[in-house]
């Protein structure tokens, strides 16, 4: 069946309005984009690591989640959902439940790539039938924009502030999707919000309905942390993809596929320029740093092309 965004949007929302996420935040967009891929009749348990998404969608006594939802702690969303999935298997085997359930858990880049990395790795390696979605906003936003291992190089964050002796975060970002792909699980995808959300939707559908563990790395811009106008969410995602900062790819049963190749790769300045967190890079004395970023992106892009047989 052909993908039709309008039709998909007419499905009942599984994360309802009235939550407390900031205007323009990418995280709920990621959640809705992923959960829209659930068949309407399928039940789901949704998990979430501590972070902006969790504290803003489930503040006692209100929950914005229509499905069963579990938050445990910051660093254990993977292990927690492993337990839920194990319970499902056991209870199904013992005839205590009959319905189809799907298991999806969300975590910010901090909860996923840093403190929750071990828990994620364990859950993926054990191949639980679940989807782990990292909504990557490039820093610990909930605690006030501290750097994470997913923060891009030279970004100004509250723990890597730029100053006379600092040009922001010294290290380039960890390539989480590739690391998880190396767990040899059935499905890994990297995506974001592009045009009619087809890329996100199709990847979510595969991730949810493939047996075994799946991981999705979703770029989810944060207007406060990145310092760009809140209404430019889609434009930020578009620039991330067109500059190859955030390539769209998937790894299905070990096979790497590039899902989109820009006709003309834009220079990284186009992505950096609109964001306040990179403002210092455009000072005369820092211009050489942009070249370093560009080189890193080019190297990663070449490598990805190679992996995808392009």
């Amino acid at each position, binding site marked *: 069946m052909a993908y039709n965004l309008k039709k998909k949007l007419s499905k009942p929302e599984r994360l309802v309005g009235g939550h407390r996420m900031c205007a323009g935040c990418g995280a709920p967009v990621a959640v809705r984009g992923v959960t829209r891929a659930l068949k309407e009749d399928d*039940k789901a*348990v949704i*998990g979430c690591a501590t972070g902006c998404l*969790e*504290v803003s969608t*489930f*503040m*006692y*006594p209100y*929950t914005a*989640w*229509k*499905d*069963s*939802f*579990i*938050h*445990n*702690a910051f*660093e*254990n969303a*993977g*292990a*927690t*959902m*492993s*337990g*839920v*999935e*194990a*319970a*499902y*298997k*056991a*209870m199904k*085997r*013992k005839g*205590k*439940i009959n*319905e189809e*359930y799907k298991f999806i858990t969300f975590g910010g880049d901090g909860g996923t790539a840093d403190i929750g990395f*071990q*828990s994620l*790795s*364990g859950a993926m*390696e*054990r191949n639980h039938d679940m989807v782990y979605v990292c909504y990557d906003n490039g820093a610990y936003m909930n605690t006030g924009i501290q750097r994470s291992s997913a923060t891009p190089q030279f970004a100004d964050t509250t723990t890597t502030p730029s100053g006379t002796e600092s040009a922001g975060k010294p290290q380039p970002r960890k390539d989480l999707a590739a690391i998880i792909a190396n767990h040899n699980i059935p499905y890994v995808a990297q995506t974001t919000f592009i045009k009619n959300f087809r890329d996100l939707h199709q990847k979510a559908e595969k991730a949810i309905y493939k047996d075994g563990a799946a991981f999705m790395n979703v770029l989810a811009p944060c207007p406060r942390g990145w310092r760009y106008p809140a209404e430019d969410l889609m434009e930020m995602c578009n620039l991330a993809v067109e500059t190859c900062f955030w390539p769209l790819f998937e790894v299905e049963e070990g096979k790497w596929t590039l899902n989109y190749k820009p006709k003309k790769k834009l220079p990284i300045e186009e992505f950096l320029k609109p964001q306040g967190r990179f403002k210092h890079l455009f000072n005369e004395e820092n211009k050489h740093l942009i070249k370093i970023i560009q080189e890193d992106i080019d190297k990663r892009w070449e490598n990805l092309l190679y992996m995808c047989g392009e």
Partner: protein
Amino acid sequence: MSIRERLSGNEAIATAMKQINPDVVAAFPITPSTEIPQYFSKYIADGLVDTEFVPVESEHSAMSACVGSESAGARTMTATSSCGLALMHEILYIAASNRLPITLAVVNRALSGPININADHSDSMGSRDAGWIQIYSESNQEAYDNFIQAVRIAEHKDVRLPIMVCQDGFITSHAVENIELIEDDKVKEFVGEYNPKNYLLNNKQPMSIGPYDTPAYYMEHKRLQAEGMKNAKDVLLKVAKEFENMTGRKYDLFETYKLEDADTAIVVINSTAGTAKDAIDRLRKEGKKAGLLKIRLFRPFPAEEIAEALKHLKAIAVMDRCDSFSNQGGPLGADIKSALYGTENAPKLINYVYGIGGRDVRVENIIEVYDSLYEIIETGKTGETYRYLSVREREVE
């Protein structure tokens, strides 16, 4: 007819788990509790249980998976020791505040550092404020019996709290002793089905668990949690009564040994109680009225009942297999002192740190403790209340 067997404490716990046949076990190896998930994995491999085993990559994940599983509606168990329990620490509180009746077998071992694998209560004492019910066991038989009763106590609707059943590393976990097992069907009937009221996989009513809680509600939620803990005492007694009807084995909040007519007593936890009973028998032969109070339920702490049982004594030694580094003694010492506060003519009290890191405790060592109690009675002088038993003054003499 009960079954006579010879089992180590670890195998006794694993056997209880097998008979209960929980929905999920998530565990990670650590000496001396490693054998529990090992035995259990073999039961799964041999089709003796139909539990889902989650071989997690750490104890933090073990407890996290237990929280997920129990929230989902599954009866869930795990086992650990020492650093493993310490690594679970953060999630222990979450399990308790979410009112999840997870059953945890703790095989007590010293905490690092320095790293040491032997019997010591620092691990479970470090979790005493986490909101878990804690039961301690002197022998393999008690560990087995306590574990079966624990499920009923934790899951009771007036309690709904996680529970840890503790025993001493190596001393009981690895020593093979005679044990009386209960028939499988009787154990199953005794623990019954787990039927939680709210759970994630309830297809009629979804549930959100683990909210962000504001000051407007947090305190009420904690108070409700405390209420569950308060109820645990009576529930434990009722479960013990039913257990006695089934097995003939009697359990209470604590056990006393020759305490009624005693003038001195020690208060102790786990396997050392056995050694102390031998010491008491020797002392009694010499005409000394020595007695014992052995803690079974430590959280909630049955303070009033303990004070009542101890109030007639002249002098007491509280034995802590753990130091709290408060410069006042150990955690049991502090709790017994506060239990006796307000008791008129309360007994004189000293607090020994003993046996830590697996330091051997022999009958003679316990007799030394009683000797110091008689000295206190004779001289009327308590002296230093915070003492170390069987310790050299220098590393090497």
